[in-house]
């Protein structure tokens, strides 16, 4: 991956005195889907926030299309073409679905392009078109996730950051949404950085994967390879063997470092 779209280089990110990210590096190539797996609290959300400029890293670089964006403000980062679908969807509850979508294009001024992208979102998620005049707070969890993804698409991203889109959704809905995520990637050529606890669906959807534990990358490989690895199966796919789980985890971690 010599011509990476996004290159995250040894970032360290803090919340006050607490260091959440301890030197993470990763790359996303154009048109690629890359996933970062990790348990709750591993630092997945923090990595995405650092990329999108909500948080500034204390050390390291975030290079997007050859430019260091680590210390840019979020609106500048958006204008560069990185749009963020936050954890927990974070829709604007009292705005209508349509108004939510228009907020996704706040940094844009090309009204023709905006209208085109609105039609595109409605094509991917017809449910949103039906409900475009309803308040977003009244949508179901799945519909809110669709709205959050569409709202990010309205920013015309080159890179889409997706934070746990499977969270709190039924397995069938997760399947549907990931199917559309894959279609968006293929049909629109949008690169995607997807962080997930649901390793199963993430590894099936993505091309390349990283495993994050307590702020560090402890493994990376093509998703097909990761899917076949025993340690990944055990700790992230839930196919654990009975017994000495804690000990084995410790050993594997030593191997990784």
């Amino acid at each position, binding site marked *: 991956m010599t011509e990476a779209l996004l290159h995250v280089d040894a970032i360290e990110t803090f919340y006050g005195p607490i260091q959440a990210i301890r030197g993470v590096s990763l790359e996303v190539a154009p048109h690629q889907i890359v996933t970062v797996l990790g348990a709750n609290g591993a630092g997945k959300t923090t990595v995405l926030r650092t990329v999108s400029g909500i948080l500034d890293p204390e050390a390291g670089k975030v290079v997007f299309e050859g430019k260091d964006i680590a210390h840019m403000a979020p*609106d500048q*980062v958006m204008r560069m073409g990185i749009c963020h679908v936050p954890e927990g969807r*974070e829709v*604007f*509850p*009292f705005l209508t679905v349509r108004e939510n979508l*228009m907020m996704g294009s*706040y940094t844009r001024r090309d009204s023709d392009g905006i209208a085109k992208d609105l039609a595109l979102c409605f094509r991917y998620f017809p449910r949103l078109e039906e409900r475009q005049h309803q308040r977003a*707070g009244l949508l179901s969890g799945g519909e809110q996730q669709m709205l959050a993804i569409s709202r990010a698409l309205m920013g015309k991203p080159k890179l889409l950051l997706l934070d746990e889109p499977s969270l709190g959704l039924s397995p069938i809905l997760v399947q549907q949404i990931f199917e559309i995520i894959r279609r968006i990637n293929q049909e629109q050529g949008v690169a995607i950085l997807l962080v997930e606890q649901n390793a199963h669906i993430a590894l099936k959807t993505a091309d390349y994967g990283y495993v994050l534990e307590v702020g560090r990358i402890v493994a990376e490989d093509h998703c097909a390879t990761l899917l076949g690895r025993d340690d990944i199966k055990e700790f992230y796919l839930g196919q654990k063997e009975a017994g000495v789980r804690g000990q084995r985890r410790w050993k594997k971690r030593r191997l990784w470092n």
Partner: protein
Amino acid sequence: MEDAARLLQLVVNGAAAGCIYGLIALGFVLIYKATEMVNFAQGDIMMLGGFVAYSAIAHWGVNYWVGGLIAIAATAAFGYALDAIVLRRVIGQPQFAVVMLTLGLGFIFRAAAGITWGYDSVGFDTPFTNKTVKLGGLILGDDNLSIIAGTVLLCGVLYLFFAKTRLGVAMQASSQNQLAAYYMGIPVRNVFSMIWAISAGVAAVAGILLSPVSMIDVNMGFLGIKAFAAAVIGGFGSIPGSVIGGVFVGIVEQLAGYYLPAGFQEVTSNIVLLGMLFIRPQGLFAERMGKRV
């Protein structure tokens, strides 16, 4: 018949006073919804707006409408700067710190106004001063009617702004979910400062509309206490609610002043406020959904 006319007159007078409370309350609510700060200096900002209009119209000899616009613009700019320079720094601090800060700012504004314009009551001529219209058997003052008309007009403009313009919707969005607004690339800090500007501008309008009815003086900002009651009655979060709450307080106050023994008028707003807090603490127009989903 005479009683009915009398009553109607009281209602109109009360509604006019209530509009002023409502406009100040609207400023409270806009700022509260956006930043969860309660700005106790809102009434004093109205006072500053009134004095600037006075300077423009009575001293520089500018026409009433132009002078009014100058005062509104200057006060709005002042509100923007106030947030950008001072209040932005206390976001996230305990509510107590914010309360003390805005109360303190109120003191400073009153002192500064006293030094600049003196402690005497002043006034300026308006197109509505000392004029009346006859409606049937009713004699209504242009001053009161202009307050009501101005408030309705301003509310209409604000409604269109918040519902139809991109910046207005972005202000709503930033108030509902600040983090998500950051994710959308909305410059949230500037948007909040602009909300302060609008609140201050609305307060200036209130000060100007009030000027044919009552003189401008350093302590006129204490009206803010009644506006506070209006905001609470309106649910402290609802913009139409705050204006309706203001009108309600204004009318009850007028009626109390006429039908109840002397002294009641001044405390009516407090009694209404207390009653409200006992009976329906969420206000008349509380939004039913939580702020975050």
